[in-house]
Every structure is written in structure tokens, then in C-alpha cells.
């Protein structure tokens, strides 16, 4: 089975087959022999060419998005059937992340201050809104350039996680 795996900016082409209780993976042309033992639920111990890793692979509820915890790090991963990914790419449906056109509340909290108004053009890194949560003020910054299309909240308002804050165009 061949997979297309994406972590942050890196894309991996991984082909896996099962042979005599081991998994043989070919990653970007290199062969890796893998042993895997379940530790219950979502955790496993894996030996990649005898290198030991305790991994915890969790599904995020979406088909392709998973989270893996390894060496104390939480790593978001996108995984897809390789052929499907190729097809999508050709059709221009690349799952490569574009700039998200909406900003949703990343946590429940209180809108302290709006840093922009409708029609403003913002640059990547510009402060958009300040949310108070867990006793701290959190500045939410733009993840890319854009123009503010609409704003759905006002200062002093409480928001739940996932509530729409504003839209870009």
C-alpha cells in the first residue's frame, strides 16, 4: 500500500508491505524494516530499523488528519492513499493547505480587543484580535495576507471554541 504523508512543509511518499511479521517500508526510495507492537488503545512501540519509538497515533475525526505523539512532541499529520493524492493534485484539489479564509475562536474565552475593522487589509503576522482565556491575553495573528470581509464578534463578548470571529476575502 502506498501513502502520501505530509507533516508541516515535508511530503513523504511511503510504500508498505507486510512480510514475515515485519513491515517493509520504502520511504522516498529508502528501505526501512519496521516492527510494531500495540501497547493498548492507540499506542504502539515501533522499531524502525531497530530504532525504538513509543508512538501514539490518534485520529482527529477526519479521514486524513491524524496526530502522532512521539518523543514528547505532538505532530499533526496528513495521510492519504498515494494514488488518490496524485489524482487530486492533477485535478488541482491538492490538500496542501491554502490560507484559511475564516478565523474561528481557537479556545473559549472573552474577546478583549479587535485589532482590525471590515475592509482592512492585513499582512501575515498582523494582530487580528485579543482573546482572554486561562488568565492570559492571547493575540491571534493573521496566518497570511488578506482583506477583512466581515467580523462576527465585538469586544467584551464571550466566545466558545470554534465560534466564527471574522472572514477574509
Amino acid at each position, binding site marked *: *500500500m502506498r*501513502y502520501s*504523508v505530509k*507533516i*508541516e512543509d*515535508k511530503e*513523504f511518499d*511511503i510504500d*508498505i508491505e*507486510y512480510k514475515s511479521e515485519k*513491515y517493509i*517500508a520504502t*520511504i522516498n526510495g529508502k528501505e*526501512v524494516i*519496521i516492527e*510494531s507492537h500495540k501497547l493498548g488503545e*492507540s*499506542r*504502539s512501540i*515501533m522499531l*524502525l530499523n531497530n*530504532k525504538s*519509538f*513509543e*508512538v*501514539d*497515533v*490518534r485520529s482527529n475525526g477526519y479521514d486524513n488528519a*491524524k496526530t*502522532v*505523539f*512521539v*518523543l*514528547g*512532541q*505532538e*505532530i499533526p*499529520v496528513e*495521510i492519504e492513499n498515494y494514488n488518490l493524492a496524485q489524482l487530486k493534485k492533477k485535478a488541482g484539489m491538492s490538500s496542501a493547505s491554502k490560507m484559511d479564509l475564516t478565523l474561528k475562536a*481557537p*479556545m*473559549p*474565552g472573552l474577546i478583549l480587543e479587535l485589532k482590525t475593522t471590515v475592509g482592512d487589509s492585513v499582512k501575515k*503576522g498582523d494582530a487580528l484580535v485579543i482573546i482572554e*482565556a*486561562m*488568565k*492570559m491575553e*492571547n*493575540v*491571534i*495573528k493573521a496566518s497570511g495576507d488578506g482583506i477583512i470581509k466581515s467580523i462576527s464578534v465585538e469586544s467584551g463578548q464571550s466566545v466558545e*471554541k470554534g465560534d466564527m470571529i471574522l472572514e477574509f476575502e
Partner: protein
Amino acid sequence: MPKIKKILIANRGEIAVRIIRACRDIGIISVAVYSDTDASAYHVRMADEAYHIGASPSSESYLVHDNILKAAKQSGADAIHPGYGFLAENATFAQRCIDENIIFIGPKPETISLLGDKLQARQAAIKANLPLVPGCEFDNENMTDALKKAGEIGYPILIKAAAGGGGKGMRVVEKPEDFEESLKRASSEAVSAFGDGRVYIEKYLLRPRHIEIQILTDQHGNGIHLNERECSIQRRHQKLIEESPSPVMTGSLRKGMGDAALSIAKQTDYVGAGTVEFMVDEDMSFYFLEVNTRLQVEHPVTELVTGVDLVKEQIAVAEGAKLRITQDDIAINGHAIECRICAEDPQQNFMPCTGTLKNYRLPAGPGVRVDSGVVIYSEVPIYYDPMIAKMIVWGKDRSEAIERCKRDLEEYRVSGLKTTIGFCRVVMDNKKFISGDISTAFIKEEYPENNFVLLSDELKEQAALAVAVDTFINERKIRLDEEQKHTKESGWKNYHRKQSVTRLGGES
């Protein structure tokens, strides 16, 4: 001298657990309090007894004097330990405890009140002959005088609120032209944050170190200091990594700072454990900053190098005991570093996170201590501080402590929540940090725009392989299960066919 038999801990999380452990060591019954969301929290499980004190927001539970005092009465506690945060530096609450005949484990209300006001604290420091950052008070209305004073100090200057804290009402002014506007904004911010518009100005140090002295004094006028802690690694005025001793400390500087700390303690009639914070300039001059009238988050680094259990000493002092240790007993044994483990996402500008700890395993083995407020399956709620634990590591010297920090940060297992673990690991590899060349500007200077690498390319490759194999195994299992089902189903089909045939040949 009356022994304390039962202590109510007016706090939650790791500091409540820390205090419960000290109580258990000396045979004192510990009483936890909890809000709705904390009904099954770790500090409740750890305590001997537990009382409900209200709804989840701290303003309806951990901050409500009446509710806490009611729980104290119900449980028959003879003392209250406030921890840090919440009511720890609240003079009114301390006074209420005294009025209700309950020992408040902390300084006198008057001392808390005096040191909580920055201008009064500054006056006390002047009386006690402590060096202060050049600066002064002035009449807000007399702008000519203010501008003149600011010019004498020299730019850049810092405008600070008298009632300040947490960076509110604080402004850096680079040049005289900006002074008037900044002053107005700082003052109005201070009014809205503290209801008190008084401000003062200080010289702004560009790359100061934050070094603080732990003090311990009793009700009989005895006092000692327990060396310094260097807390320069900060993000937005929040300490992240602390250590003791400071990598730049010398014997004479330590004596100078220690004497200064004890002198302001004497001046303010200080009783109990406290921390005198200083800024240390690049030329190693030190300046008084403020006194924290409570146990600090970072107290364990002092415990690991001095061997003194500060919470037990706080309790002994509150009972009225004379100090059991003298200045000569305080040695420096090795080196300790603390990393604060916060539920924050370093890649999203350290945004706080909430969630359930699906996996949670502490590092263990030589030299590591973890003071954790959570365990596996704990929920991290949105209502409180995002710090879920502190990892404190001891080594025979600073370099062994850093080595062990690296190991233990990698050994820490957390699933379900983002934390500052990975970022602390990054700092441990920073050459400037390793050489001890740090200041409060360290994170801002070293990682502008949060440009640190949490995941190496090698780790990404390994993670990709792990997820691919996991996916392959799951898909293979589903395929095999389905094949088996098909085999079974066709088995059933055959069985049904047989039945039919039998029937055909029989009854029908």
C-alpha cells in the same frame, strides 16, 4: 507553642498538591477546596479532606473569602495556606483569617499591603538602603517637571503603574517626544486596570537579568536568605525556566544581594517565606524590583540545592517556631533548573490549550522531580492558569542539570494537549543558554517571530513512517476482518441453501 493540626489549602493544581505533600510529611491533616469543575481534580484526590466552594470561575470559588472561610470552619482547620496566586497576596483575606482566629500562613496583612503597593515598596527599599533603578515619582499634572526628571534619568525610560502587575499600565518610552502621550496612556490604563492612576518612571534596562533572593524569617526577628534564583528566561513577563544558583553569581554579589533582601525584610517587619526580586544589569549592578509576599512557583530549585523544604519551614514559622536553620546551614549543593510545563501551543504564539490528558507519564530516575497538578485523564479546564506542572532537575553542576533536563523533557509523555515541553527542549540546546549568557530579553532576541524548530526533518520522517505503518495495520485488519466475514457469510449461504434443499426434498 500551638502546633498546627489541620491546614486548608486555598488553592488548586500543582501548588495545592505540593502543600499537601508537606502536610503529609509532618502529620498535618490537609484540606482541599474545589470548584465545580475541580470535583475530581488531582489536588482533591491527594488531600485528606475536601470541601466544595462554588462554581468553576475563580471569582465564584477560589477567590471568595466567605466560601473558603466557611470550608475552614466546617473542616476545623486551624490554618490556611494560600499557595501563590488567588488570595496569596490579598491583605484583606489575610486579615479576615486573623479575625476568624485562623492562622494565615504568610506575612502580616500590613506587610502584604505595604509591599503590594509599588510606590510604598520603593519607599521602604530606599529606607532600607537598597539600590533602586534610577527613577522617581512626580506630579502627573506637572508635565514640565516630569519631562525634566525623565531627561535626567536618560532614555529609554519605563513608565510603571504604582498599583501595577502583569505588565499593565507599563510603557517603554524611547525619546522625549513620546513621553507625554505614553504617560497619559499608561495612567489611563492603570486607572481602568487597578482603579489607581498613579505612575512613576524608571530607567529602562535593555538586557537585565532577573535574579531573586529567597528569604525566610520568623516571628522573633531572625531571618536568613537561601541564595538566589535566576529567572531571566521569560516570555511576556512570564517566567518559563528558572535556576539556582545563577550562572553569573559570585560570592560577594550573593552576599550583597542577600544582605539587601534581609534588610528590606527587616524594614517591612516581614515574617515567613518571601522573595526579593532584583534586576541585574550587564555590569553586574543590582537594583531592587519588588517583594513577592508568598511562596514562589519556582521555589523547588532552591529546595533542591539547599535541601530545605520551604513549605515545612513556612508552617513552622506560622506556628511561631524560631528558625531551625541558620545562615551557616545554607550551602549550595549542585545546580537545579525548573521548566514550567504549561498547556500552551508554542507554534501558535503560546496560546493556552484545554483538553483531556489521554496519556500522561512523568519522567523519572536520577535527579528529576516533578510537581504536577494533573494525572492521566485529568481535564485541563479553561478557568485557571495554564501551568499544569513543573519539572525540576538537579545535577552536580549546571552542565549535568542541563543534560538531565534534556533527557527528562524527552521522557515526559503528554497526549491530548499541547505544552511548552518542546520549546523548553529547544532552549536547552541554545548555545547562549548553555553558556549562561541570558537576560530577560533572551526569548525575544533569540526567537523573534517564534522562529524555533520543534521538529527536526529526521523526526518528521520517523513520525510519517509511524503513522503510515499504523494506518497500514488498521486497514489490513479491516480487510482481514471483512474477508473473514465474507467467508462466514458464504458459509451461512451454503447452510441456508442446504436447508432449502432439505426442505425441497422433504416437506415441500
